[in-house]
């Protein structure tokens, strides 16, 4: 009777790593230039954005490295960034940052034709025709390098303002929206505390801010299509650089320590009679959903804003749809968790399967002893 070798795992792992590296470098010789991090960070800027946001770490170069190393797999790249982050202590907590100070590259409102500061379309694919631009297939470096400088040279002379007022402020001043809360609870840090349901809105927002874009889009879309009823209007969607203000180590005064590219979305939902928390005679007001994430990722910010609004409803009235159920939404949108678990099924499960076979065989023996044959055997006869 034969048996199998019990050695070989280590050699197999090393071989797999070599094969993976070989594929990264393979291809026609003329095209085999290693990707530069600079090219990834800038030419694949939306991918870099997505990885920083899902990885929960604002570090464009490390995100670019993760993309290169993982050969373009977004889930793996976000995961690598997240694991790197695990080695870093939390040094301090920032005070709440004012996104009104963002240096914008784009801001739009679908609620009003004109908004204070004006609509600014900025860099977007929204109204671009999705026709293949074959000229990009063979791009020569010279015009490519000049593109950005030509664009800036042709930019209008008059300086744009540093920041723009928020659309919501106008609605607040008209009392169509509830005023900002006077008191803030301390932010829930999902990297330091586990989610124990019921969770605060802060914990929900933090979980969504680093969630996997596609997962969140799928659940938000279910709400948009009819498994939910929030009917959002985008009050404002803004993309830009947020100055990060930290207390000065000596004076304690808030000082700009750097900037992060981020996307923020505020959606307004229709008022509902029970939406006002105060007495029933209070005047109805619109309600808000909020989404924000690192980088330029509008799909994610919009999905998050819609889910925030849906979850607030679920937290208050009890969920009527999957997208209103905090546990259902928050436990299933993390890319690192879901992708890891889906892939773990590839690992050896010899022992548990042996156990499964034992149960099935034992159950079948009992069937046969009773003279009942399991169905598939009846089909064969």
């Amino acid at each position, binding site marked *: *009777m*034969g*048996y*199998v070798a*019990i*050695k*070989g*795992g*280590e050699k*197999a*792992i090393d071989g797999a790593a070599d094969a993976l590296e070989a594929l990264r470098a393979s291809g026609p010789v003329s095209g085999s230039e290693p990707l530069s*991090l600079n090219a990834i960070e800038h030419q694949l800027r939306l991918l870099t954005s997505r990885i920083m946001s899902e990885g929960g770490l604002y570090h464009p*170069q*490390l995100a670019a*490295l993760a993309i290169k190393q993982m050969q373009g797999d977004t889930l793996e790249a976000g*995961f*690598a960034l*997240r*694991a790197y*982050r*695990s*080695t*870093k*202590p939390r040094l301090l907590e920032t005070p709440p940052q004012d996104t009104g100070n963002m240096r914008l590259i784009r801001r739009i409102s679908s609620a009003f034709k004109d908004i204070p500061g004006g609509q600014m379309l900025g860099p977007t694919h929204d109204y671009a025709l999705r026709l293949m631009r074959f000229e990009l297939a063979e791009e020569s470096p010279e015009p490519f390098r000049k593109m950005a400088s030509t664009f800036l040279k042709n930019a209008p002379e008059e300086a744009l303002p540093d920041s723009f007022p928020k659309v919501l402020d106008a609605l607040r001043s008209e009392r169509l929206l509830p005023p900002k809360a006077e008191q803030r609870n301390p932010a829930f840090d*999902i*990297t*330091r*505390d*586990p*989610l*124990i*349901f*019921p969770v605060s809105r802060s914990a929900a927002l933090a979980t969504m801010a680093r969630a996997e874009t596609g997962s969140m889009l799928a659940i938000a879309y279910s709400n948009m299509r009819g498994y939910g009823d929030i009917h959002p209007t985008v009050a404002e969607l803004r993309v830009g650089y947020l100055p990060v203000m930290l207390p000065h180590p000596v004076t304690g005064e808030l000082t700009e320590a*750097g900037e992060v590219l981020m996307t923020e979305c505020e959606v307004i939902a229709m008022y509902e009679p029970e939406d006002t928390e105060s007495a029933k005679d209070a005047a109805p007001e619109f309600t808000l959903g909020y989404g924000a994430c690192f980088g330029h990722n509008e799909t994610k910010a919009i999905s998050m804003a819609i889910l925030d609004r849906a979850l607030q409803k679920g937290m208050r009235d009890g969920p009527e749809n999957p997208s209103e159920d905090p*546990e259902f939404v928050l*436990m299933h949108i993390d890319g*690192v*968790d879901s*992708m*890891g*678990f889906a*892939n*773990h*099924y590839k*690992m*050896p*499960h*010899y*022992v*548990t399967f*042996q*156990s*499964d*076979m*034992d*149960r099935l*065989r*034992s*159950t079948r023996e*009992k069937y046969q002893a009773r003279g009942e044959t399991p169905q598939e055997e009846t089909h064969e006869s």
Partner: protein
Amino acid sequence: MNPNYRLPNSQDSYGFGFLDEFAKREIRRVILKAISIPGYQTPYASREMPMGRGFGTGGLQLTLSMIGPDDTLKVIDQGSDDSVNAVNLRKFAELTCPEVSTTESTTEASLIQTRHRVPEIPLRENQVLNFQVPYPDPLVIVEPSEAKRKIMHGEGDYARLLTKLYEDLVKFDEITISHRYPTRINGHYVIDPSPIPRYDVPRLNQSKALLLFGAGREKKIYAVPPYTNADPLVFDDVPFRTENFYDADGQRRACARCGCTDSFLDELNLEDGSKAWQCSDTDYCNRQLASTEAGEVTQ
């Protein structure tokens, strides 16, 4: 970003045990709490590790937060030290915990990280067994909501789990739970003992070694402290049954490699279409083989 910023050149910046010290301290505190409340799923802020969720990140966080330079670590997966995932985790521990020695011997190890098995050789009081846990909650098969399950655990309400076992008996005349068998700890909390076979469940009872369970993705740690009762959930008139390794003639199958008849066996499908059985615990198998060979030499 600062244009003068440069990425570090090498990976020499990782600290001992990979995790930052705050994370390790938190996990140690949670372990103490878990030991104090046997079987209670203690929540913790599980960190992302550089291997997939589901690949043992929970067990690894336990190991890395408690390991010191004097420890001897053994890592097994499916009972084997050389299974791909065991190799990977052991290599990672060697990379991030210099000075720690690793071993394949159950008796030499002070710390054992395992997936899906309890070693065949009984453990001692000065050993710790860290289980990798995919599903920490045995109630998940009857209740999907974690918030509701938490209440059920608090009230010791396992009625729906018992009903499931009863329904199995009605439908199949057998309890169909093959592994991850619900086990009551110290007379109160019922745990998911991780996907160990039923064969290993009795080993949890009155164990001399501390048994720790880490679920990284689900962010829970629980413990079966030494000398604590661990009883599989059964009915008085339906005994708990472990995996059956008897052939049609009622003969206990032997390991094709070492010949022993007292270990959990892997079933192998050979090239010629026949079947063979072999110890799942490779250290145990090697030990049996070595003592048989030594015996043959003396003869």
